[in-house]
């Protein structure tokens, strides 16, 4: 065994010696045979001829000798590669065109696959990310679907060890950070339950807080994201135990997260959500994520949660009529959101592009192999096996596609940079896109696959090389011409068919995009700009806030080039919604007197004008509505239709925490995601304003 191995290794490294020895040995045989034949009375010429005939095809036996030494695979590959390189160098134009074609075809796939991988397959560098599920709630009875859980129900699910190893969640928040040199706004995640455990994340520095820190009073602790720690503290290891002033409350820094952990995206700081607050108990704002038990999968889990939903609804006092349902779906799928269908379509499209590329390259190679017919025929006549020629054709094709694959990586790198640079803020998921080892591997596999595919047709052609005809150099007969023609026109048909599919797909996608762009959002999107400020915490007591806002509003309205300005707590399409229950005074409705849901946002009177939202009935807010006056609100058309029907809503009182009198009805807004069902909403006047929009 060892001896065999050594001789094999020796032969691989002393390849040329092996060939030389073999040549010498066979030549020795032929020479000796010739001598013997001459001695038996033949003329030298005749003897040489006879010796060759008796020996048989030299090339064939040389090949068999190599086979016998089991050097074949390595040997053949090296030889075929050398041959391919020679052929390709000899036809630079052909080589360049095929390589560029392949690079583009494969590169499109590399680019899209890296996005698919970053968004759909592995958005976080977490092992076992496929074991994470997101639980959402649907309240179809209210026309509300796909919203988060409350902090309370997240904590309850964290207690379900029969379903989850760990369960937790987060809700977005933002703070004014005032204890550092300059006041700044930072974005935060309020977490509930075993949030960090769910992602198997450990502190990079210090420690992480636990679910117990949700208790009121204990909740003034914070964990920093790695990026924020670098940015705000320059990576100072002494930050642990220091205090941060967030909205004028002092939070103790417990730890720093590792660099790789970036979920949710763009979050600077993590704080526990305080228990026993309205937000904790009522707002369905928590994105709840669970690490599923190893003996469970998503489908039975989803079924189990669905079965339990009525029980949960009863526990939380949600009327049965709302049809409260808990729904579980894979985390990766949830995280990808609307990008998922788009990416899948794109993946299909680039797959077709690659197919077309292969067909193109196959056609090019086929044309060229026709020019090589005679060469092939000569080699077959000399005893080269057809299989060897087929192999050579395929090696040549794969060589082309692998070089093309290298070009594809360059294209992929460029595309990934472009995606990161131009990704809309709405899709922070795209930040995870990278050209990693998996993408590299996929590109390699794809390149080889493309090479094999594109080499198939020329290889088939080689199988059928007609030795006689080609050697006789006869005019190409009608039959070969026809056959050749058939193969080429077959390729052309395939190409046209694929292109047709692609064009149809593109047109459909374009139409969809067009519809999304022109869909009526209920407000103007042109010439509207927005900015965000936070005036929260004890420092901004009620009256200074009102004063501040009034002044800001005034100054903006008078500002140069500004047509209208207004403020709101949640900007439409910003993704943040504040869905909570409300009641209509004097209408128990038999629905447990509670739990009608609507998104609520607080706005200034200029908001509607700035956003171009029409007032349909009643009146706008006026100066008299501020401070001390009874709280008033506007509702949108959809809410009016859903809960008041033909009744006139003006003058009625609704309450989302505090009662407010309806003074008017405005046009409905598209909420959150374009293309989805609108949710009814009411709008009240209040002090804690976070967003401003103005029209210029």
């Amino acid at each position: 065994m060892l001896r065999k191995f050594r001789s094999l290794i020796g032969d691989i490294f002393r390849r040329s010696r092996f060939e030389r020895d073999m040549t010498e040995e066979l030549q020795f045989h032929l020479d000796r045979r010739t001598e013997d034949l001459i001695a038996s009375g033949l003329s030298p010429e005749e003897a040489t001829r006879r010796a060759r005939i008796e020996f048989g095809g030299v090339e064939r036996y040389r090949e068999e000798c190599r086979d016998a030494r089991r050097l074949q695979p390595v040997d053949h590959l090296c030889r075929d590669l050398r041959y391919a390189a020679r052929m390709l160098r000899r036809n630079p134009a052909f080589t360049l065109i095929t390589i560029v074609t392949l690079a583009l075809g494969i590169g499109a796939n590399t680019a899209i696959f890296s996005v698919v991988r970053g968004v759909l397959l592995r958005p976080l560098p977490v092992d076992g990310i496929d074991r994470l599920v997101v639980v959402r709630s649907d309240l179809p009875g209210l026309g509300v679907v796909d919203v988060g859980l409350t902090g309370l129900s997240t904590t309850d699910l964290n207690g379900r060890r029969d379903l989850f190893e760990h369960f937790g969640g987060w809700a977005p928040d933002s703070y004014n950070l005032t204890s550092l040199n300059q006041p700044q706004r930072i974005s935060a995640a309020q977490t509930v339950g075993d949030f960090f455990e769910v992602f198997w994340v450990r502190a990079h520095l210090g420690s992480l807080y636990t679910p117990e820190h949700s208790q009121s009073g204990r909740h003034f602790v914070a964990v920093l994201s790695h990026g924020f720690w670098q940015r705000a503290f320059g990576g100072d290891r002494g930050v642990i135990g220091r205090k941060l002033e967030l909205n004028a409350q002092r939070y103790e820094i417990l730890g720093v997260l590792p660099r790789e952990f970036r979920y949710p995206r763009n979050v600077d700081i993590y704080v526990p959500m305080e228990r026993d607050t309205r937000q904790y108990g009522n707002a369905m704002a928590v994105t709840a994520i669970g690490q599923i038990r190893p003996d469970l999968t998503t489908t039975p889990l989803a079924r189990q949660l669905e079965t339990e939903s009525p029980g949960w609804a009863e526990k939380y006092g949600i009327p049965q009529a709302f049809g409260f349902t808990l729904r579980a779906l894979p985390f990766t799928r949830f995280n990808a959101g609307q990008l998922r269908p788009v990416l899948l379509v794109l993946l299909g499209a680039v797959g077709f592009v690659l197919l077309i590329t292969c067909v193109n390259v196959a056609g090019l190679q086929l044309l060229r192999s026709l020019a090589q017919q005679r060469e092939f025929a000569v080699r077959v006549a000399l005893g080269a096996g057809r299989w060897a020629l087929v192999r050579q054709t395929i090696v040549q094709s794969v060589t082309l596609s692998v070089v093309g694959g290298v070009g594809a990586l360059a294209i992929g790198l460029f595309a990934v940079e472009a995606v990161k640079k131009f990704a809309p803020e709405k899709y922070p998921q795209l930040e995870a896109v990278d050209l990693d080892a998996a993408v590299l591997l996929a590109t390699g596999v794809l390149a080889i696959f493309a090479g094999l595919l594109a080499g198939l047709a020329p290889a088939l052609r080689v199988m059928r090389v007609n030795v006689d005809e080609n050697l006789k150099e006869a005019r190409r007969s009608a039959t070969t011409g026809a056959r050749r023609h058939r193969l080429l026109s077959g390729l052309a048909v395939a190409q046209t068919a694929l292109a047709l599919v692609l064009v149809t797909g593109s047109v459909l996608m374009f139409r969809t995009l067009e519809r999304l762009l022109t869909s009526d959002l209920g407000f103007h999107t042109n010439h509207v700009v927005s900015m965000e400020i936070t005036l929260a915490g004890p420092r901004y007591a009620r009256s200074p806030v009102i004063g501040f806002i009034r002044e800001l509003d005034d100054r903006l309205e008078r500002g140069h080039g500004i047509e209208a300005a207004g403020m709101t707590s949640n900007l439409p399409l910003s993704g943040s919604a504040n869905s909570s229950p409300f009641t209509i005074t004097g209408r128990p409705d038999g629905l447990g007197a509670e739990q009608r849901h609507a998104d609520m946002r607080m706005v200034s009177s200029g908001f509607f004008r700035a956003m171009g939202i029409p007032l349909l009935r009643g009146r706008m807010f006026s100066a008299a509505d501020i401070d001390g006056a009874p709280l008033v609100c506007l509702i949108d058309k959809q809410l009016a239709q859903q809960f008041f029907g033909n009744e006139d809503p003006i003058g009625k009182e609704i309450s989302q925490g505090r009662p407010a009198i309806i003074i008017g009805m405005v046009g409905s807004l598209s909420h959150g995601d374009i293309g989805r069902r609108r949710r009814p909403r009411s709008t009240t006047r209040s002090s804690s304003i976070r967003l401003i929009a103005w029209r210029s």
Partner: protein
Amino acid sequence: MAQRAELLPGTLDLLILKAVSLGALHGYGILLRIEQISGGALTIEQGALYPALYRLERQGLLDTEWGASDSNRRAKFYRLTPSGRKRLRAETEGWNRIVFAMAAALKARPEEV
């Protein structure tokens, strides 16, 4: 011209081993030895000898060495290894059994069945 027979598959290896067992030979010498010991009755295409030799060498049944031929040219000589000798013995026995069995079978008459 003596009547010639095609080689049965697998017999070339045995013939080579037998030829080499009588002393180290180069490829052409092996061919001549086979023709000689078979009385010229067995023919092979001469080139076919070499893949067989290379295979036997890989199997460790033959050893090779470069030396000078009788005409003083460099030539590759094949020699039987101990395991080659063992193989030759085993194959010879197997061959004899088959020949005996075949001969007996072909001699069978109707009344013996």
